[in-house]
């Protein structure tokens, strides 16, 4: 695929998204909800870019994380129109999570320090990273979205059912704003359920039938330390390849 990116001619494989192509070319596009190992989601909208298709007069604004590169398109990642849109989105994020350092820093980086909207003080920005890690990578599907609009939030089913959670902590790891705290409640419950006391790394699928002898005090455990040290990231994410191009 041949296309133009910020005035320069580029090529990319079919199925690559504009965001991926731009990042490969060393162009920084802010994106909160994009993650190498996850399918694109299009929740944060910060990755908007202007795209002019061949023969069209007016450029369109699209979310680059979801937009596959096409032959002959012209992409602009940093125009006044795009900057204005991003600033507006950052103001909204800032109003939602004024207490989250990640949001404040990101906003400040783009020159947004104040917000015209009333503040909500919810650290969760609904980027969906935790939900997608839990379903796409962990496969546990322990948390998901519920409600809609202003009531939208991340929850376990019926708000209380965490029976699917394997206490891997991948959700808390990927959360950019640290809105998720690992409650050791679930770990304690694994303990109480009795039976075989399978190691968390068995539940995650790394070890076969390892039994926990430390009563789930993983911070004491050699296995936990080994995995953490080797992975340089959350073990669940380290075990996975970056996402395959789904759309050819």
């Amino acid at each position: 695929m041949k296309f133009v990116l910020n005035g320069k001619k580029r090529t990319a494989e079919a199925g690559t998204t504009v965001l991926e192509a731009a990042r490969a070319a060393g162009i920084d596009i802010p994106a909160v909800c994009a993650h190498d190992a996850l399918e694109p989601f299009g929740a944060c909208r910060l990755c908007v870019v202007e795209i002019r298709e061949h023969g069209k007069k007016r450029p369109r604004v699209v979310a680059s994380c979801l937009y596959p590169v096409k032959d002959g398109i012209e992409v602009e990642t940093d125009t006044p129109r795009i900057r204005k849109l991003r600033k507006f989105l950052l103001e909204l994020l800032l109003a939602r999570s004024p207490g989250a350092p990640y949001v404040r820093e990101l906003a400040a980086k783009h020159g947004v320090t104040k917000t015209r909207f009333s503040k909500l003080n919810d650290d969760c920005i609904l980027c969906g990273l935790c939900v997608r890690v839990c379903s796409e990578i962990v496969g546990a599907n322990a948390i998901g979205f519920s409600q809609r609009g202003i009531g939208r939030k991340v929850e376990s089913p019926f708000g209380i059912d965490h029976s699917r959670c394997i206490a891997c902590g991948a959700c808390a790891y990927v959360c950019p704003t640290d809105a998720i705290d690992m409650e050791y409640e679930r770990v304690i419950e694994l303990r109480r359920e009795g039976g075989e006391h399978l190691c968390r790394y068995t539940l995650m699928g790394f070890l076969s039938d390892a039994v926990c002898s430390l009563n789930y005090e993983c911070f004491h455990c050699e296995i936990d330390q080994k995995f953490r040290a080797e992975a340089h990231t959350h073990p669940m994410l380290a075990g996975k390849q970056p996402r395959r191009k789904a759309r050819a």
Partner: protein
Amino acid sequence: MSDAGSMRTIRDVLLPGRAGVAAPASGGVSGERAVQRILESHGRMASQIIAILQDLQALRQYLPEAELRLISRELDVPLTRLYAIATFYKAFRLVPRGRHEISLCTGTACHVRGAMRVKDAIEREIKIAAGGTTLDMRFSFETIRCLGCCGQAPVMMVDGELVSRLDHLTVGKALEKYK
């Protein structure tokens, strides 16, 4: 269950009847059979999930948790997904409804003719706030906007039947016949 690797481990460990994981539908065999019939009528396709939930709600007046769990297992759709759908659409309800459904109009015409007084009177009579269901499951009460017969304001609908020209003094009596 096509997913290989780590997926299988989690499923194997967590799915078959461990503590806290889905017990069979509360209604026993007949409840399960009803759900199975609904699933069959939609070809057991996960893509038909909204139609399936609609059928279940038509049957039960709400979506019982146990039967959502059953559907989740049968169709291999995560419960989080079902919960997301059931809470996203206002048409789905996760709490049981009463035997009789009262919908009181609080639209403009009814409002002007004293619908709010009628609302207070109903709330006093059945001892729940609008939007709730009585503990004895006799009534569910909600306010709605317009039933399209403003000439008879204020009006309410009980079990699909119109009750018109209400006033707060007599509305209690009008509800007596619904047991």
